[in-house]
């Protein structure tokens, strides 16, 4: 076997959940864009924290607290390194959604006003739409959306046209959680900076699957979730450029984010703590650190290669099923390991129910991207999304399941 390629069967052994049976069948987990499974190493890191050194961080003089603080800040170092940022630029939130809201509220409430434009795309997840709608209600700034073409790619001309409105902020997904489209965020960031806009990248679907380097992209902010990258639920990350973060008002107010508080006003803590109000989800952060270690031990570029190979195989075998419509581009360089599709007029929910019986976990619905569904002209799609532990045999099982659905629905 080529040492460059992953062996998903070996990797699966690190993930306790694959021991479980679903209706007596092996678990075929194809909902990685929603959340990923957790390796033993991550589960253990959290258990160890709670059993050995559970304590609140930063302000404790005693041993447990010192150990917890060290592990917590060490996880921050790991995350910073993982995306090539400085530690003080890594803010822990509860998920990508909170990270995006942080920017919308903290930067948006203080910098947007009537007549200003916010630039998004038609393929955004609700988490990168609704916060801006909320802020646009408060500030009366207007939202524009870059449209997509039939292949599911952003229309270049539309980018140019909408940039001419001189948006104050441009917030764009790196990888679509429905189409799999990988956007050229570096190019869009460059364009946006030329016209003086602030840039935000929603990297929820990219950081877990491919090398993401914030210096290389050049964006001002970048958000992702730990739980989509083998980490625990309950921790997300906002990267922000130091200068911007320093100038910004805090978002949540409370413990840990202040340096001094009086009755009338307060002084903020240094970065990154200025943006981390209240007690952090310490165990989850430490778990995320362990997830980063695990990803590094496998190698993110090997994961990407594995996913390309699997996606290629899936696109090929799925396209052999008649009446099956796949959304998004066939260009593997521009596509992550996410495949949305519809089978004839079988509703995705019905598909998912039939597949469930085969032990296949597949998502059906609007994938928190209703505007995109409208654009595609459907209410919902079925979606298979892969990760390092998925194998071609999982794709084969999916194909078999879809054929069963065809039979049930008498197609």
């Amino acid at each position, binding site marked *: 076997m080529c040492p460059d390629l992953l062996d998903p069967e070996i990797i699966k052994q690190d993930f306790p959940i694959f021991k479980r049976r679903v209706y007596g069948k092996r678990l075929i987990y194809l909902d990685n864009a929603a959340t990923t499974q957790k390796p033993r190493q991550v589960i253990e890191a959290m258990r160890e924290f709670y059993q050995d050194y559970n304590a609140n961080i930063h302000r404790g003089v005693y041993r447990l607290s010192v150990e917890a603080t060290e592990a917590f800040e060490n996880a921050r170092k790991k995350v910073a390194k993982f995306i090539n940022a400085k530690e003080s630029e890594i803010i822990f939130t509860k998920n990508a959604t909170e990270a995006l809201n942080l920017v919308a509220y903290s930067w948006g409430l203080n910098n947007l006003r009537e007549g200003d434009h916010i630039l998004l795309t038609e393929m955004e997840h609700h988490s990168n739409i609704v916060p801006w709608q909320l802020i646009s209600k408060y500030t009366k700034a207007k939202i524009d959306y870059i449209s997509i073409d039939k292949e599911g790619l952003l229309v270049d001309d539309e980018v140019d046209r909408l940039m001419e409105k001189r948006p104050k902020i441009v917030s764009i997904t790196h990888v679509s959680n429905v189409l799999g489209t990988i956007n050229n965020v570096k190019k869009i960031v460059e364009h946006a900076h030329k016209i003086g806009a602030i840039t935000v990248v929603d990297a929820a679907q990219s950081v877990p699957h491919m090398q993401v380097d914030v210096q290389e992209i050049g964006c001002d902010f970048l958000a992702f979730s730990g739980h989509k990258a083998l980490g625990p639920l309950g921790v997300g990350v906002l990267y922000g450029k130091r200068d911007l973060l320093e100038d910004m008002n805090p978002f949540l107010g409370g413990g840990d984010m202040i340096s001094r508080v009086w009755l009338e006003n307060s002084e903020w803590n240094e970065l990154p703590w200025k943006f981390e109000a209240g007690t952090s989800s310490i165990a989850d952060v430490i778990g995320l650190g362990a997830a980063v270690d695990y990803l590094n031990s496998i190698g993110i570029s090997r994961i990407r290669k594995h996913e390309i190979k699997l996606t290629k195989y899936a696109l090929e075998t799925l396209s052999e099923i008649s009446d099956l419509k796949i959304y998004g581009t066939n260009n593997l360089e521009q596509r992550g390991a996410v495949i949305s599709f519809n089978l004839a007029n079988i509703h*995705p929910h019905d598909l998912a*129910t039939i597949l469930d019986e085969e032990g296949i976990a597949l998502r059906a619905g609007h994938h928190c991207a209703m505007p995109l569904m409208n654009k595609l002209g459907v209410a*919902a799609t079925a979606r298979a999304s892969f990760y390092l532990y998925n194998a071609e045999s999982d794709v084969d099982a999916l194909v078999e399941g879809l054929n069963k659905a065809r039979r049930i629905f008498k197609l």
Partner: protein
Amino acid sequence: MSSEIYRDMILDYYRHPRNYGSIEDAEIKVQESNPLCGDDIELYIKFDEEKNVKDIKFKGRGCAISVASASLMTELLKGKKLDDLLSFSKKDLLEALGIETLGLNPVRIKCALLPYKALKIGVYSHIGKKLSEEEKHILDYESESQQD
């Protein structure tokens, strides 16, 4: 096994929805959607002088289960009295669909109950009964407890 739900009856109702369409001069018009999947239903009811259901129709997009459920429900309720609509229960609908015993999971039961929810909201508002905190809660609770 839950794929047993896709029996001929359900598939037939799905392929050929009964009472599909809208009623211009309906006394009850409701729109309900399932936030979990984006499916929605519009329900129309028209009464005759005796307050019996003269016509009942639905429209919308949904899965086999919700469309079959709406088809069946409209069939069951045509000609019925207003009081019957009020007493019509979740259980009545699920039994008629024959899915009570299939161990269908709660998310899918929610699909089956989308027409039911539209019905209840429509009928209550038609009789001008402002639902109390408690009653709204029970209605919601039903759907909530189905969901989890």
